[in-house]
Each structure stands twice: as C-alpha cells, then as structure tokens.
C-alpha cells in the first residue's frame, strides 16, 4: 500500500533536506564538519526534540552571528533598566557598538533621570590594563554621582580585560554602595565567558539575584505600594519598538496590575517590587528563566511562559494567564479577546490573501525562532526552516510545539550554511538579523529583521500584530524586488 501523497511528500522533503545538510557540510575540514553536523537536522514529527546540539562553542573561523556575554548582559538584560547608569567598564569599543542599538523604548528625560540611549565608559587606556582599573572605576562612580544625581543606581558591565587583569569590581561596588547609598551592581559579563550572549543573560540574572534582591528584601516597606491579588510582572520583554507596552495594555485590560516590566522601560524600583507579585509572566524564556526560577524558589512566586505574537497565541496566552486568577479575570480575558476580534479579522482579511502560502526561513536569537511562527501561520504563511543563534536544549524541545514535520533546523548557523540552505530552499521571506539582511536582499529575497523589527514595531499584542502583518506585506510585496536584474538581460 502506498502512503498518502502528503506524507510521501513530507518524507521526501525530510530525505532531501538531510541530503542538503550533508552536501552543505562537504566544504568543511573534517574536524569542523564533525562538530557542525551535530547542529543541523530535520525535524521529524512526534519527536520531543529537534535533535540538534546547542549552546556549544562556535567553530573558529566560521562566520557566526553570535555575540558575547557582555552583549547579553549590557545589551539585553541590564541596558534597558532606564533609571540606572550602566558603565561599559573597559576599552571604548563595546559600549560604543552597543550604544542605542536595540530600540528598547522608554519614557524619561535622557541624561537627567533616564540614561537608556547614552554610553558611559571607563575608556581603558594601556595604563589601566597595566595598573588595573579599580581606582578609575571608583573615581568614575563619584563623577557619575556628581553629574547625574538623579540616577537610581549603577551597574558595572565588565568587558574582556576586566576579568583577565584581575580587577576586583565587587570590592569597588560594595564600597561605592555604602558611599553613595545606592545600588551598585558588579556584573562579570566579560565577552570571553561562555559561548554566546546567552551566558551574559544568566550572569545578569545572577547579579540581580545577588545584588538587587537582597536590597529589595531590606527595603520592602519603603518601596511604597500596597500589594493586590492581581499583581504580576512582565519578565523578558525588552520593549523593542514598544513591545512591552502593547503587551502591558492587554494584561491591564484583563484586570491584572503590572507592577514591573523587565527590563524594557523598567526601573530599579520595579525590579525591587517584583518579589511581591503573585505571578511572573515570562516572554523571553531564554534570557530570564533563571531569575524567574530563583523567584519561585526564594519567594514562592510561580511563573508562566506566554506568547503574544499573533492572535492565536495571544488568545491562548491570555486564557492561560487568566486561568491562574479568579473568574473576574477570566471573564475579562474573554471580553478582551472578543473586543480585539474585529481588529484581528480586519487585519487578516486584508493581509492574508497577499501572504497566503508564502514560505519563511527564520534565524534569530533565543526565543523568536519559535515564538513568531504562529503569527506567520495566522497570516497563512509557512515555515520551512528555523534555528537559534544561542538557544539551549530546552529551547529546541519547546520548538517542537511550533513546527511541522520536515522543518530544517540549524543551531548557530554559519553565514556559509545559511546562504547555502536558502539557495536550496528558496523561501519567499527571510526573517533574521541585520548582519544577514543585505546578504539576502542582494539575492533578491525579501527580508525582515526579527531582532529589531526592522525599525518598526511593536509586534507584540493585538496592536503589534497589525503592524507585523503590514510589515510582512510591505516586505514581500514591494515592487522594488521586481526591478532586480536589467530587462535586457532577462530575455
């Protein structure tokens, strides 16, 4: 008996894609090939994992898109805490390149009570490497206090040399905390630690655990709000293009009280309030699961992962969040879902016909390679491949809920591999990062940056979904793609 046609087709796809992986790996020297083949696979339905190794050192000399621990701590977790000053401690470059690069929106007067789009650095010179930078750091903190008196605290983000020359930033931080009477957090996020920015997220979470929460425990009474049974915190939303706001508005509409946003548009006070909430709502699991687990253990606060990309997942998430509360909240959640139905219907009615059946290749950081997939599905689009820059094994397990049989999976994909895969799979849209964008646009392929929403956004929540749909349409259906190639060459 012959299997039904679609199964056959899928099996063939799986076989073809496995052959493709093999072919792409051919160019590597043996040692690197052996390493890389463990990171590439084709997802087979029913399996509990994508079957790839992850969170392992990148192959030297292969063009990885990964960043470093500093990028994970300063660039992602700590940087968006808007009322603190984050010192890029070490040479000038790291702070310079991570200056205003992530579009973590905030409300505040920059340079006065808010510091999100500024670059503070100790600008290490040769003598600092030779003699150590601790004294300079102490002096720098005193200068910060004088010039930026409304800062609520300081974090010290270590660049590579700090750990290598053996500076004692913890001692400086302790002393400074006493002197200025504010929270000063040393963060050991030197770029050589770990294999990607992922360890930086973990280190940043640990520094919050060790340097912020103990202060919060002491100051509990001074923090100044009466607890309510509906208190929640948004954890792991960096407010790219305003994502956390278009999420927060929904949570508030269903009757919850969001007392903290981590870390987009967040403040130190909000961080300190978090151990009082009833439930932590985790969007970016990869970067903030550590602190959520800690709060569960230390304070007994449960946490819940949710996904606010696309109406299907938003409704599902709202219901699940509401299920942790009483009927009032549950009813309000239903009312909110119903309220936005018309808005979503209009968006889908307009954009789905333009996007139906289009295929997408994804490759992003540590959450979106799975989380945005349902938003594409809501628009009738289909995923052909996905992978993480710095996902871990648990991310690849979670990914199985989002993808279909035969999806190509690539972990820490190199520029070479990605290009070869795309050439073969011929997706209609690539959704990845700035370093990949122009490579694929030169190949006449529509592209959207899925780290930064390509300067658009927000993409979270119902309001964000409308923008997401509009943006996919403008990328895919731009007449500019049809201009590529001189007409006299086409005939």
């Amino acid at each position, binding site marked *: 008996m012959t299997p039904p046609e679609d199964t056959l087709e899928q099996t063939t796809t799986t076989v073809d894609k496995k052959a493709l992986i093999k072919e792409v790996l051919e160019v590597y020297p043996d040692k690197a090939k052996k390493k890389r083949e463990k990171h590439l696979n084709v997802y087979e339905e029913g399996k509990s994992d994508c079957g790839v190794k992850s969170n392992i050192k990148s192959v030297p000399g292969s063009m990885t898109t990964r960043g470093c621990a500093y990028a994970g701590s300063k660039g992602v977790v700590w940087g968006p805490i808007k009322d603190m000053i984050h010192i890029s401690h070490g040479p000038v470059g790291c702070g310079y390149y991570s200056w205003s690069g992530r579009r973590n929106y905030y409300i505040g007067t920059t340079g006065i009570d808010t510091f999100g789009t500024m670059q503070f650095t100790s600008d290490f010179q040769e003598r600092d490497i030779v003699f150590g930078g601790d004294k300079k750091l102490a002096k720098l903190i005193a200068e910060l206090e004088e010039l930026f008196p409304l800062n609520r605290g300081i974090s010290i983000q270590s660049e590579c040399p700090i750990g290598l020359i053996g500076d004692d930033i913890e001692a400086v931080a302790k002393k400074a905390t006493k002197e200025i009477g504010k929270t000063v957090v040393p963060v050991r996020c030197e770029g050589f630690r770990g294999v990607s920015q992922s360890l930086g997220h973990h280190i940043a979470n640990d520094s919050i655990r060790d340097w912020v929460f103990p202060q919060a425990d002491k100051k509990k009474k001074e923090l100044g709000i009466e607890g309510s049974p509906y208190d929640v915190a948004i954890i792991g939303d960096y407010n790219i293009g305003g994502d956390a706001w278009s999420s927060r508005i929904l949570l508030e509409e269903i009757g919850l009280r969001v007392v903290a946003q981590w870390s987009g548009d967040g403040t130190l006070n909000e961080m300190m309030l978090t151990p009082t909430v009833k439930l932590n709502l985790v969007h970016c699991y990869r970067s903030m699961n550590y602190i959520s687990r800690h709060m569960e253990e230390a304070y007994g606060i449960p946490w819940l992962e949710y996904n606010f990309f696309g109406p299907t997942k938003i409704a599902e998430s709202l219901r699940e969040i509401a299920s942790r509360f009483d009927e009032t909240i549950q009813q309000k959640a239903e009312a909110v879902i119903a309220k936005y139905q018309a808005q979503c219907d209009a968006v889908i009615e307009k954009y789905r016909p333009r996007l139906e059946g289009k295929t997408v290749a994804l490759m992003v950081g540590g959450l979106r390679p799975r989380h945005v997939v349902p938003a594409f599905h809501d628009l009738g689009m289909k995923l052909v491949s996905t992978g993480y820059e710095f996902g871990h094994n648990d991310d690849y397990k979670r990914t199985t809920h989002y993808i279909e049989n035969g999806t190509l999976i690539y972990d820490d994909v190199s520029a070479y591999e990605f290009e070869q895969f795309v050439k073969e799979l011929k997706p209609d849209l690539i959704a990845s990062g700035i370093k990949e964008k122009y490579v694929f646009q*030169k190949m006449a392929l529509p592209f959207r940056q899925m780290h930064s929403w390509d300067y658009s956004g927000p993409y979270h929540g119902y309001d964000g979904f409308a923008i997401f749909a509009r943006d996919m349409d403008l990328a895919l259906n731009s007449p500019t793609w049809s201009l590529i190639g001189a007409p006299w060459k086409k005939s």
Partner: protein
Amino acid sequence: MAQNNVDNIQDHATLFHQDEYQELFQAKKEFEGGHSPEEVARIAEWTKTWEYREKNFAREALTVNPAKACQPLGAILAAVGFEGTLPFVHGSQGCVAYFRTHFTRHFKEPFSAVSSSMTEDAAVFGGLNNMIDGLANSYNLYKPKMIALCTTCMAEVIGDDLGAFIKTSKEKGSVPEDFPVPYAHTPSFVGSHITGYDNMMKGILSNLTEGKKQATTNGKINFIPGFETYIGNLREVKRLASLMGVNYTLLADNSDYLDSPNDGEFRMYQGGTTLEDAADSINAEATIAFQAYSTTKTREYIAAEWKQKTFVCRPVGIRGTDEFLMKLSELTGQPIPKELEDERGRAVDAFTDSQAWLHGKRVALYGDPDLVIGLVQFLLEVGAEPVHIVVTNSNEIFEQELQAILDASPFGSTAKIWGGRDLWHMRSLLFTEPVDLLIGNSYGKYLWRDTHTPLVRIGYPIFDRHHLHRYATFGYQGAINLLNWIVNTLLDELDRNTIVPAKTDISYDLIR
C-alpha cells in the same frame, strides 16, 4: 482605539501618542519610583549652566558618549578594500558581531568578517588552537585570496603573538605556505578605530610588497583613503585621477564592496584593489594619503622602507581640491584639464550664491581628526565660524595642525579645539555658548534634541539617514554637496522658526 483602521495601521511613531497608551504611561509611574517632574526639570535646567559645564569638564575618569570606536573596526575596513580579502579577528567573537553590525547599519551592505571565537579556555591557554582551526575553516568555507588578521583586546591582554601563530598555523597546514596572511595588533585600549586602520594598512602593505621592489618606478601614484566612509569620495578620487590622466593605485578600494549593485546575486567579495596592484605599490612614484591621522605609521613605513615620497592631501572644499589637483599635476606632469577648471568654477559659483546665508554662522563640529580638518577648511572658505571643535581621538600634532589652519583665517579666531573630549562635553558647550549649527554623525541627534541646535549629518556612523555615504565630500562636486547639506539645513531651520501663522510667518519667504 489603537488600530481601528486597517488601512492606516499605527506603528510606534504614532501608536503610543494615543490616549490609551498615554494613560498607561501615566499609570505605570506609580511603580517606577521616579523623581518628581519638578526635580527633573530643576536638574535639567542645572545641566545647562556654566556651573555644570565646569563640573563636567573637571571629570577625569568618566567618558560619556565618546566620538570614537576601537582599533579592530578600522582594521577590518582597511582589509575589505583588497580583492578577495576576509578580515579575521583573533579574539572573542562578540567583537566581530558588533563590527559587522556597525558597518552594516551604516552602509546598508553585507559585511563579512570572521573571528577565532576565543572563550575561557583560550584565555587560560592562549588562542593558538583557535587560530589554527580558524584559519583552516575560514579558508575552506569562504575561499578568500587573502586573510587579514587583527586582534581584539582579549587577545592583546593575554599576549597572543600573531606572527608566531600564523607561522605555526601554516606549518600545520591551515592555509598554504604562500597564502598571504598579513596581520596587525590592534588593542582596543590604544588609540581608536583610525589607529586600527593605520596598523592594518601597514600590515597588509608590508606583507604584500615584501621582495617586490623593482629598479624603476611603475609610474603610478598610490592613493590611501584612510578611515573613509564616503564611498562617493573613493569614486570621486578615481574620477578626478582619470580626468587628469593619472595612473594610480587606490590602497585600498572598498567602494564596490560597500556599495555593490543589486543584481540578484550575493558575492562575498566585490571589487577591491588586486593583490598584484597592491604588491606593486612599492614601485609607485609617490603616495598620497587623504587622511593624516589614520595613516601615520603607514606613511612612515612607506617613506622608510619603500623610499617613497608621501603626501597628505585633503581634497575638501575649493582650496583642498585645488591643492590635490596641483599636487597630482606636479607629481605626474599632467596638466589640470579645462573640464576640472569648469567644475571648479561651478563650485565657486555655488559658494558665492550661498555665502550670505553662511557668513558669520557659528558652527560646532565633532568627528575624527582628518574629517574635522576638512570641514574646518570648508567652513573657513565660506565665511562660517567654527566655534566648538570636539575630537575624542585627538592628539597633539593634530591640534597644532588644526590651530594653524584656524589662525590663518579671521573666521577661525573664535574656535576652540577640545581634544580628548566627548559629546557630553559638547552638550555643555552648546548650552553655555550656543551656535547656529552642529555638524557630526548620527549621535548628534541627541544633542539636537536637547539643545535644539540644527544638525548636519557628516561623518561616521550615520545610521538614521539613508544614502549620505554614497555622496562625495571630496572634489569640487563634493564641495557642492557639503554646501547643499549645510546651507539647506540652515534654511530649513529658518523656515521652521518662521512658520507660526499670523505670528512669525511674516518671514516665511518663498525665495531665499
């Protein structure tokens, strides 16, 4: 309601201005633990004062919003100007992700570079194994004609020796023995991106030209752009040289790499100075650099080792371009053609047409040393007055050179050079001694917001405006571009200031 019109979907630019989001922001304040609006306003006013300025200028340890980056960024920009060249940064990989991102955001082009991905184990044992594997992998994967190596601060702190590592890697067969792997040590705690450019250019030229010295010259002139981010300038220099009938080698030409045509195919390597031409540059008549402070060591090397005359010409503005063309003519015996004389005349015509709007205008500017010198020359030519000149990656020789240029013009008398200062210093300067115009890169938009000083975006990086890097600032045509950007920014500002109906719009003139 937020998205009540599917035909006019609101994104962040307008979405959050709506009432429901404004209420959300207001309500959020309850948890933020912020300062009172009065306190914020009081401190904000205080930061505009002379008292604050003095405190700000007294700082010794803190740098805020510096106008400089680190060495490897410059090194890899130099490298991609050579045919088929892959920049390879020895050290931790995050740096390369940052460099690639930074260039990509400015040029809106792919930028390929690899790293040896050093982690904790390399920090302890050194990065030799990373280099051996890294060279083999990048050679096989990306099929370069040359790999240009530089370091991050990590590799420098642990003391990795590039020369020895390359030798060992070649012995182990990572790349063929005769495969060019020039290198430069580029510690991030020394100098800035322009130092890195210089080190890498010197490294590449010394590697490629070794043993290539001939008895006679090849009759060519070498051009070295320096840390140049205006693709238009490279194209302009080539055009000028061709019009002059000058045989030249551009060391190195990254214009095709950083501004490649979209024809439906991605090519990792585009154009660039051929390795043969680069190797033969040792036999040129002379070398002209378009920047002094990003080519210092390279020029010293060329003078000492190649026994070649070197010159610095900055073809910015009328006189800068005159000098360049006359230098070319002097070195080659080629006359300056009528076509260029006409171009000059047209640029001068444009200058005289616009001068009334620029005369006596007070200007603040910041950027790399050579960029700033070119701009100052231009401003003095049109009768504008440089006032605050902030150069974070300054040095003494540069300051002397710039001071001499300022001293030679009556329009330079109000200028002060602020070497080693940053954009937070500039903020104080703009508040205490306001000017009519600010010139600098995209980071100036924060100064524009805070001080309302109109901003002309010139320099690197420019992230928030499109295509400026495609234009030239060099040559007579570049002078017209500069003039256009500057005078029209002032006219835009004049319109903005005279726009209120029945109040200020008496001066809202049609004809300017």
